[in-house]
C-alpha cells in the first residue's frame, strides 16, 4: 500500500512492521514524532509491544540492552544530543553482542543550538561497534529498518545497528512510501532467536570482567562480526529485492558511475540533489556520477578502491567536520586508498552544516571545480568549506 508519509512516520511504521517486543525511547526534536506515532500505535492496539518510558536516552538504551539480553527484539529512536547521551551504552550494546536497532535523526551538535541536519552526531558514534546506514529517502528509512534487523540478528553478526535520516529533509518531509504487507515482512524477518540470553531459572553473569589475557580476543570477535556484515548487507539487499522489488546497492550505492570520469561521494539527502545534477550534466555529455556512501560502518573500502580505479577524481561532500583534521569521510577514503597504487586527486567539500541548504546550483559549482581537477590531474587544495561566508563568497556558493 502506498502512502504519503514523513520520514519519521516511515520509521514508526517500520517499527510496527518489525514487531519489536520492547521499545524504549525519549523524545528529542526532530525525532519526537517517531516516539509519538509509536505511542499512538500502542494506544490503538495496532502495535503489541512493551513501550518503556524513561527519563533519558541513556536509560532508553539501557532498557533496550536489558530487554535484548532477555532475547527479544528491541527498538529505539533518538537524535543529536540524545545520541551523544547514549554514547556509553552504545558500546555496551555492541560489546554484549545485542542486535538493538535504532533510528537516529541526524541533527547538529550545539552550541550554536541547532535542530537542523548535520551528520556529526552519527560520526561521533563511528567506533562504538554499531552498523551505520545513511538513508537517502523515506522509503529507504523504512526498508533499511526491516533489513537492519535481519542483518543485526544474524548469528554471524549479532551487532546493533542504526539507520540515519536527515533532520527535516526526511524526518518532517512527506513523500510517497510503499508500506509492505505485514505478512511479507513476517516472511522476510522471522522472530529473533538469541544465541545466548538471560534466563531467570538458569542465572548467568553477562558482560563480566575479563582479565587482560582475554580482552583482545573478545574485541577481535566484534571485528570479525563487523567484517561479516559486508557480505550480509549485500545478501540481505538481494533477498529484499526479490521479495519487495527494491534494492539500495548494498554498501556503496553507485549512480551512473560505470563510465564516469569524476564522481561525487557522500551520504544522506544531498545524494538526491547530486543525482539530479548528474542527470543534467550527463545530458550535456559530461561523464559524471554519484557514489552514495550508504553504509558508513562497516566502511566500504573495497568498493571505494574499485571506484577509484576507474575515475580521474573524486569529490567528497560531507555534512560534518572532524575538528583538527578534515571531513570524516575524506579521512576514511584517503586511508582506504593509501596502500594501493591508486593516485587520483580527492577533494573534500564541507557543505550544508547545521541544515544550510545545498541546492543544485551548488552541486553544479562543485562538479565544475572537480572537472578542472579531473582534467588537469592537479589538486588546488584538499579541503574546501563550500559556501562559507568569508566576506567574498562567490555567487555560485550563495
Amino acid at each position, binding site marked *: 500500500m502506498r502512502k504519503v508519509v514523513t520520514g519519521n512516520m516511515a520509521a514508526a511504521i517500520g517499527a510496527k512492521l518489525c514487531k519489536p517486543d520492547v521499545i524504549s525511547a525519549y523524545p528529542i526534536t526532530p525525532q519526537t514524532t517517531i516516539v509519538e506515532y509509536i505511542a499512538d500505535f500502542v494506544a490503538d492496539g495496532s502495535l503489541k509491544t512493551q513501550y518503556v518510558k524513561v527519563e533519558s536516552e541513556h536509560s532508553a538504551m539501557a532498557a533496550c540492552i536489558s530487554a535484548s539480553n532477555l532475547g527479544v527484539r528491541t527498538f529505539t529512536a533518538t537524535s543529536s544530543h540524545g545520541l551523544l547521551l547514549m554514547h556509553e551504552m552504545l558500546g555496551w550494546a555492541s*560489546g*554484549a*553482542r545485542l542486535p538493538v536497532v535504532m533510528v537516529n535523526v541526524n541533527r547538529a551538535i550545539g552550541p550554536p543550538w541547532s535542530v537542523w541536519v548535520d551528520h556529526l552526531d552519527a560520526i561521533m558514534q563511528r567506533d562504538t561497534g554499531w552498523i551505520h546506514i545513511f538513508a537517502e529517502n523515506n522509503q529507504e528509512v523504512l526498508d533499511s529498518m526491516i533489513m537492519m534487523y535481519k542483518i543485526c540478528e544474524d548469528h554471524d553478526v*549479532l551487532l546493533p545497528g542504526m539507520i540515519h535520516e536527515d533532520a527535516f529533509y526526511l524526518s518532517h518531509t512527506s513523500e510517497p512510501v510503499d508500506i509492505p504487507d505485514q505478512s511479507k515482512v513476517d516472511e522476510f524477518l522471522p522472530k529473533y532467536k538469541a*544465541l*545466548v540470553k538471560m534466563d531467570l531459572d538458569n542465572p*548467568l*553473569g*553477562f*558482560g*563480566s*570482567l*575479563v*582479565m587482560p*589475557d*582475554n580482552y583482545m*580476543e*573478545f574485541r*577481535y*570477535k566484534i571485528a570479525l562480526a563487523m567484517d561479516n556484515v559486508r557480505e550480509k548487507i549485500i545478501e540481505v539487499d538481494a533477498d529484499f529485492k526479490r521479495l519487495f522489488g527494491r534494492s539500495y546497492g548494498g554498501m556503496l550505492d553507485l549512480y551512473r558511475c560505470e563510465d564516469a570520469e569524476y564522481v561525487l561521494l557522500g551520504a544522506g539527502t544531498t545524494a538526491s540533489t547530486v543525482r539530479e545534477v548528474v542527470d543534467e550534466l550527463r545530458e550535456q555529455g559530461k561523464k559524471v556520477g554519484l557514489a552514495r556512501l550508504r553504509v558508513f560502518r562497516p566502511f566500504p573500502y573495497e568498493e571505494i578502491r574499485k571506484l577509484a580505479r576507474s575515475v580521474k577524481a573524486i569529490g567528497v561532500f560531507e555534512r560534518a567536520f572532524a575538528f583538527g583534521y578534515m571531513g570524516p569521510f575524506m579521512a576514511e577514503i584517503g586511508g582506504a586508498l593509501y596502500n594501493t597504487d591508486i593516485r587520483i586527486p580527492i577533494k573534500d567539500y564541507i557543505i550544508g552544516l547545521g541544515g544550510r541548504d545545498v541546492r543544485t546550483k551548488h552541486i553544479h559549482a562543485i562538479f565544475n571545480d572537480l572537472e578542472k581537477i579531473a582534467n588537469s590531474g592537479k589538486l588546488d587544495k584538499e579541503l574546501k568549506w563550500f559556501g562559507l561566508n568569508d566576506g567574498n563568497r562567490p555567487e555560485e556558493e550563495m
Partner: protein
Amino acid sequence: MKTYQEITITPINNVDSRAVKTGAWRTWRPVLIPEKCIHCYKCWKVCPDVAISVESPEEKSLPVWDYDYCKGCGLCAFECPKDAIEMQREVDQ
C-alpha cells in the same frame, strides 16, 4: 589462555564475580601485627571489598584477610588507630 575461537561470543559466566580472583592486582599486602591489634574491627568495617573477616568478635579473634580478593588499597592500614597493619610490597614477600 583461551583462543578467540574457544571463548563465548561475549563474556558469560555461570559463576558469580567471586570466581574472578581480583587479589591478583595487589601490589601492597596488608599484614597484621597481632600484638598491636585492639580488636576494634575498624579494618573489617572499612574494607571496600569485604575481604576482611572476623570469626568471633566476642572472643576477640583477630581479623583475617582474604588475599584472593584484597587489592591492597590500604584503607584498613590507614584507618587502623594503632598502626597495627603494615603494607608490605608483594615483590618482597
